[in-house]
């Protein structure tokens, strides 16, 4: 009888432990979603160019929920305004342009109050891929004893006493767009292997209304092997009452297809969460992708 009771107690403890684990994971997922509260984007002046002389493209980049209307800068070469509390983040960003021949170069983003600006020269024919890459950035979120939420970046912060729902995470993102000069090619579209990337059949500089567009999400260099959701929003949300976000489900290999009725600039975004390895000190790794696409009329 006594033995049975002990056994039952052990079983009960195990069930409790499992339940707690599940709860922690659910909380982690919830937080990871609510943390990515702001959209990011690069808006190129042109995505399709032609000619036999070097051409220029001017880009703006911003952290903003008003799609393609700037709110805060994204990137700083120290020649623009002081970006204060965003400086830490900007120091971590890698600004990469992959050219039509696959070589990488940097892009210098100057911060203004509401967005950052970068000028780019296109010399070689083919497709340029412009990215602002945020590598894994540690961040801890928690609920303070008074019920309010707190967070800190990096690993030097201190979780207040009596805080609950402590989630240690990393966030990484790629903010991208594409520009083609004369004949587009696919060299720069090849996934780099870092984070969540856009690949697949359609060329991002050959998108037209009412034509089937097919892409595939790649994660860490391989097709994403899970079903996820992709969000598509047309620019100028500020001038509409509804955001009209289109949610598209991928298949189990990250593939998705869509047609677009209205020409314009669109922001495509997706997220993937990966549980941290036991003992790594990280509960969840968050990866985001924000790709700006231009769609032309027939």
């Amino acid at each position, binding site marked *: 009888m006594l033995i049975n009771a002990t056994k039952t107690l052990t079983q009960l403890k195990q069930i409790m432990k499992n339940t707690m684990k599940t709860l922690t994971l659910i909380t982690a997922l919830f937080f990871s*979603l*609510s943390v990515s*509260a702001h959209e990011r984007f690069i808006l190129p002046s042109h995505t399709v160019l032609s000619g036999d002389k070097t051409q220029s493209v001017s880009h703006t980049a911003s952290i903003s*929920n008003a799609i393609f209307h700037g709110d805060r800068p994204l990137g700083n070469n120290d020649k623009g305004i002081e970006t204060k509390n965003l400086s830490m983040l900007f120091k971590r960003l890698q600004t990469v342009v992959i050219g039509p021949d696959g070589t990488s170069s940097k892009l210098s983003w100057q911060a203004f109050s509401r967005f950052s600006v970068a000028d780019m020269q296109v010399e070689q024919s083919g497709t340029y891929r412009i990215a602002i890459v945020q590598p894994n950035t540690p961040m801890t979120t928690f609920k303070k004893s008074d019920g309010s939420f707190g967070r800190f970046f990096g690993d030097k912060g201190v979780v207040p006493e009596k805080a609950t729902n402590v989630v240690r995470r990393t966030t990484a993102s790629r903010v991208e767009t594409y520009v083609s000069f004369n004949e587009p090619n696919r060299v720069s579209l090849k996934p780099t292997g870092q984070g969540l990337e856009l690949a697949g059949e359609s060329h991002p500089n050959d998108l037209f209304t009412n034509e089937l567009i097919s892409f595939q999400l790649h994660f860490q260099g391989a097709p994403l092997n899970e079903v996820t959701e992709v969000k598509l929003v047309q620019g100028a949300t500020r001038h509409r*009452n*509804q*955001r009209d976000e289109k949610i598209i489900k991928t298949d189990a290999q990250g593939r998705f297809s869509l047609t677009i009725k209205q020409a314009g600039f669109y922001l495509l975004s997706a997220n993937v969460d990966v549980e941290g390895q036991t003992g790594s000190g990280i509960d969840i790794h968050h990866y985001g992708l924000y790709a700006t696409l231009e769609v032309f009329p027939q």
Partner: protein
Amino acid sequence: MKNLLNSLMVFYLVATALNSQQVDASELSVEVSIPKIDSQPYHKPYVSIWLETRKRKGVHTLAFWHEQSDWFKDLRQWWRKIGQQKSPAYDQVTGATKKPGRYQVKITREAFAELALAPGEYFLNVEAVREEGGREFIRQKITLGSGERKTYQKSGKHELGNIVINVTP
């Protein structure tokens, strides 16, 4: 010049006579529902409920639920008619944003007496806007001071649910 002064005098007297008839014994109550919206992340909407003249001049704000002043402008109609000028003052009716549910706000008889409105047609407006969400603006023409009890109903499609306006003489 004398003629002009006379005309002005007559105008003043007529205007005063008209004004003496006020909507002072009415009560206006507005029930607004904020729908539950399945969105991640979900931010509670900024909402404002206000009264305008038929010529769209702001008369009185019944409620203004908000968080940070940076986003007041996103209640676009309320902002252009009342918020920008802070006129008529709305400090008395501000509050924190509300979670989905049904809420009632009103203009009491005492408040009506202070407003000294002429009887007639007005617009009752309800506007809601949600961060990373949509915006909705609903207006209803209402009659005040007719001595009749009146109920108006409207329904939002996105950021607002049912709206019931009751005018009680």
